[in-house]
């Protein structure tokens, strides 16, 4: 077995790198710049159901570019809604994801859903633009349920469209 193992190992490791990110169960997502600040932004807002521009239960879906957590779309919610019985985190952080359909960069707010056991389905870690904990504006390792009415009980993570990025 030893030789066979070695023979395939290099290739498998390369694959495992891509896989581990999806099997890498973890944290939370949500910055003080997120949807808590929503009412202040001059944009029309909708309550959206499951999006039709991609598979909201797949870690590869474009909105999830900076996420780290269980996808609410697999847990009784959607990219913009929390499962029944949970609460939306009060604070959150934001990422910027390119929408391949219109080639625009959207600002995404990764609100956590809180107050129930971790969903456990569709673990997804993509971490684009993720920053260390002291960069609270962009830290997806923080359990952002902290500060919600349900405190730190983490259930799943959303990816809510806040608007088109106007560049930096």
């Amino acid at each position: 077995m030893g030789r066979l193992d070695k023979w395939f190992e290099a290739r498998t490791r390369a694959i495992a790198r891509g896989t581990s990110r999806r099997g890498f169960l973890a944290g939370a997502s949500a910055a003080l710049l997120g949807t808590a600040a929503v009412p202040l932004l001059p944009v029309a807002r909708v309550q959206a159901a499951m999006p039709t521009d991609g598979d909201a239960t797949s870690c590869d879906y474009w909105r999830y570019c900076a996420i780290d957590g269980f996808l609410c779309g697999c847990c009784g919610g959607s990219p913009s809604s929390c499962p029944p019985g949970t609460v939306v985190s009060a604070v959150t952080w934001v990422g910027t994801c390119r929408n391949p359909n219109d080639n625009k960069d959207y600002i995404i707010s990764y609100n956590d859903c809180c107050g129930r056991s971790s969903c456990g389905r569709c673990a997804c870690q993509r971490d684009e633009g993720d920053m260390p904990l002291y960069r609270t504006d962009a830290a997806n390792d923080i359990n952002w349920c902290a500060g919600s009415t349900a405190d730190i009980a983490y259930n799943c993570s959303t990816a809510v469209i806040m608007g088109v990025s106007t560049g930096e």
Partner: protein
Amino acid sequence: MKKQAGYSIVLTAGLLLCATPLAADDLPAETPYVETMPEGPRDHWVALGDLNPLGSPDTRVVLFDADKGEMLGLLSTGYWSGLSYFPRGRSDIVTLETYFEKGTRGKRTDYAVIYDGKTLLPLHEIEIPPRRMTALTQTRMADLTDDGRFLAVTNFTPAQSVSIVDLAEHRFVGEVATPGCGQIYPVSARSFGILCGDGSLRIMTLDDAGQVATQAEGEPFFDAFKDPVLVPAARWGAAWLFVSMDGMIHEVAAENDVAKLRATWSLITDRERKDRWRTGGVQPLAIHEATSKLYALMRQGGPETYEEPAEEVWVYDLKTHAKIDTIPLTNLTLAINVSRDDKPLLNAAALKTVVPYWSLALVSILGNKFADFDVVKPALDIYDAHTGHHLRTIDHAANFATSVTQP
């Protein structure tokens, strides 16, 4: 796809009117909200009881829409539970929950919790004696009276008793000692049986206040030492069908609130018995009342394998006791149930291999010790109960599901 909008934590109402998007063809900005459970019939909802053995203080009831193959939400039920009950004609959901003050130590508190069926928020947390029984086989640990008014709960310390909870008045009514007897088998609006070590079913009847008005001992209908019946039985009207370890069905009905053995018949032929066919899993029987069909999880193996996952479902006509169908299962299965409606689904808590079968066989053939691998994950398989066709598999349905419940 869920269509109904819930409510948003973020108060944006005032702003929706005066705001405009940045460009007409941009995706609109969204407001996060909380979903509610779908309206309409619940027949094809499925609740998995997740024992979560690697995180025992965090058992869950995981709710699915079997038609869409989607998770609807979950209820957190604390230490070693995952038990849920659906009162007929009401939308609320009842769970049993146990908490220690400090996770696995400190004061223990048990609750019967009533959840709003639309919001999945707890409406009433009714404290009950911290003595409810916990075991691997969970399906008859408690149940509702048929009128949905009372919940009866089995206790084990190891002294045995039954707690009664009034779900209308949201209060614990009382506890009755039931030495040598436990598990709950509802038989009528206010009566339920408890299974006793002498091989009998004792019928307890509650009065309007939930007090035990009468207890009727039954005749022993099986020999607990020669051929014991399994605890997870299946209900057929006023009767319960128990299967013995040796494949005999004992059909026990409550007549005038006394349990009577109505029929005894065999699930398996002598030949099948010689081939070591027996039931498997921890919830091996299910009945579809309207068509009088019995579904039994079957496997081959010695008596010590009687709780291991099964490979087939055998279907019987309850009136003729004839075997009428064999359903080969897509994945090894631990627990089954059948929906009550006229397009019934067979719901199966299964174990699915994490890599394809053939690759595992290859590993085994080439010499690795198969048992060293963690190769199964829980899945929920949905079959058409009439045709036996496998309709869909819901992956990662739970951490470790040992019961399937449904409205």
